[in-house]
């Protein structure tokens, strides 16, 4: 017997059905985003809607900082000014020396027929907030595609590399810090020129040098700079310093821990280093060659 409830008892779908619908939709989104990157447009739209909230939420902290700046004492301003003048003086000397070296370097490269190094344009961006997510190390800054920020640009502060732009919204962009787990950066040991790959570990003060043979020449205190061979990071930016080298003969690789040079966890402003130079395309792999072990570069 067909028994219909009266219309005023109708409440739409039951919670079970709704749960199924919305979970399926969420799961579809998760897979589409994680595997196929299909949802870039939808993300952009959502980011435009969230943008005002992000700005409003960041405002109280910004106002507090400005208030703090307003009530700064005369003596501390004078001390700051004296320090900055001295720094400026020292930097000016170094800079004039560097200009000479730059010209000389360009000339020598021309003589050798080597590729010219690129001058990278730089934009300043203000950090809106750091990651609120205990799983990843990310920053949100206030420049986006409207401010000519693009995916993959390097981000530095006054002491070294901070990270890389990984997602760009119209007015904001997301920076993945070098300490983020799974973030890799090609580096070079400044002392002896050894190349290596530096990986983030997920903690703010530690980076790991991966795949270094036990007998490789790395010592505590070695400065590591970007090698520039990836075409993402400009050559020669300080990245980290070797903090601890453990060589255990039972393992294949040495365990080398480094500390980042940049103040990765404490920023209000960062520099976005622009422009990936148009590098020659990497050689295409021939599909029919039998599997060979790739030689590892140290």
């Amino acid at each position, binding site marked *: 017997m067909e028994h219909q409830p009266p219309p005023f008892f109708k409440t739409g779908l039951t919670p079970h059905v709704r749960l199924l619908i919305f979970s399926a939709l969420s799961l579809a989104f998760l897979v589409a985003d994680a595997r196929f990157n299909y949802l870039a447009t939808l993300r952009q739209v959502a980011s435009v809607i969230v943008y005002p909230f992000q700005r409003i939420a960041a405002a109280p902290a910004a106002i507090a900082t400005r208030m703090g700046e307003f009530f700064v004492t005369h003596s501390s301003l004078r001390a700051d000014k004296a320090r900055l003048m001295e720094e400026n003086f020292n930097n000016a000397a170094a800079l004039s020396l560097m200009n000479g070296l730059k010209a000389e370097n360009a000339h020598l490269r021309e003589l050798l027929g080597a590729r010219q190094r690129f001058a990278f344009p730089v934009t300043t961006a203000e950090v809106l907030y750091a990651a*609120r997510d205990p*799983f990843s190390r990310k920053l949100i800054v206030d420049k986006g595609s409207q401010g000519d920020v693009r995916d993959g640009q390097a981000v530095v502060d006054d002491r070294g590399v901070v990270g890389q732009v990984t997602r760009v919204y119209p007015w904001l962009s997301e920076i993945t810090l070098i300490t983020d787990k799974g973030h890799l950066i090609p580096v070079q040991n400044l002392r002896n020129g050894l190349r290596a790959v530096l990986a983030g570990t997920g903690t703010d003060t530690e980076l790991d040098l991966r795949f270094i043979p036990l007998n490789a020449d790395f010592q505590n205190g070695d400065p590591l700079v970007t090698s520039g061979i990836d075409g993402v990071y400009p050559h020669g930016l300080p990245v980290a310093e070797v903090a601890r080298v453990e060589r255990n003969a039972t393992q294949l690789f040495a365990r080398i821990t480094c500390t980042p040079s940049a103040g990765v966890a404490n920023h209000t402003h960062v520099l976005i280093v622009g422009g990936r130079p148009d590098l020659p395309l990497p050689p295409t792999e021939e599909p029919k060659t039998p599997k060979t072990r790739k030689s590892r570069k140290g």
Partner: protein
Amino acid sequence: MADIRITPHEILLPVKPGFIAFTLVAALLANLLPWSGTWLWIRPDFVALALLYWCIEQPRKVGFVAAWLIGLFMDVADGALFGQHALAYSILAYAGIVLHRRVLGFSGTPQVVHVVILLLMNDLIVLAIRMLAGADFPGYPYFVGSFVAGALWLPLGVLLKLPQRTKPDPYHA
């Protein structure tokens, strides 16, 4: 000054949809505040807390659509995988709606225990998705936020019911 406590038999005014929207937006803003360091660990998920509150108190007015959309916004703001908070909040809304009679049947500590368990389930769903996507286990302090949220539950209930309470009758002696 009226008594701040709400007696079980007090008759409340119907809640305004605008007020619900306002509290959800306020919760989103609270989540977006620049928390860092230890504060980040003990920060309750305000959005989950507000959603659960309304799903339990007003299951006819707040439900899956609100939970799912606000979850998407949280994902964008966090730069996380698209859909992880949406999924967790949808399941939280389901639990809130299905269990609302049971939870409201309790008062005081037993109610808080229910809420903490539901919020922990929410955390576990996000954690499971993140670990499937390749993240490391962030450590047990990850769950502290839900207990803080549980501690906030009863004060929040009093606060959010204030606009629904009737004004004392001036002609009543």
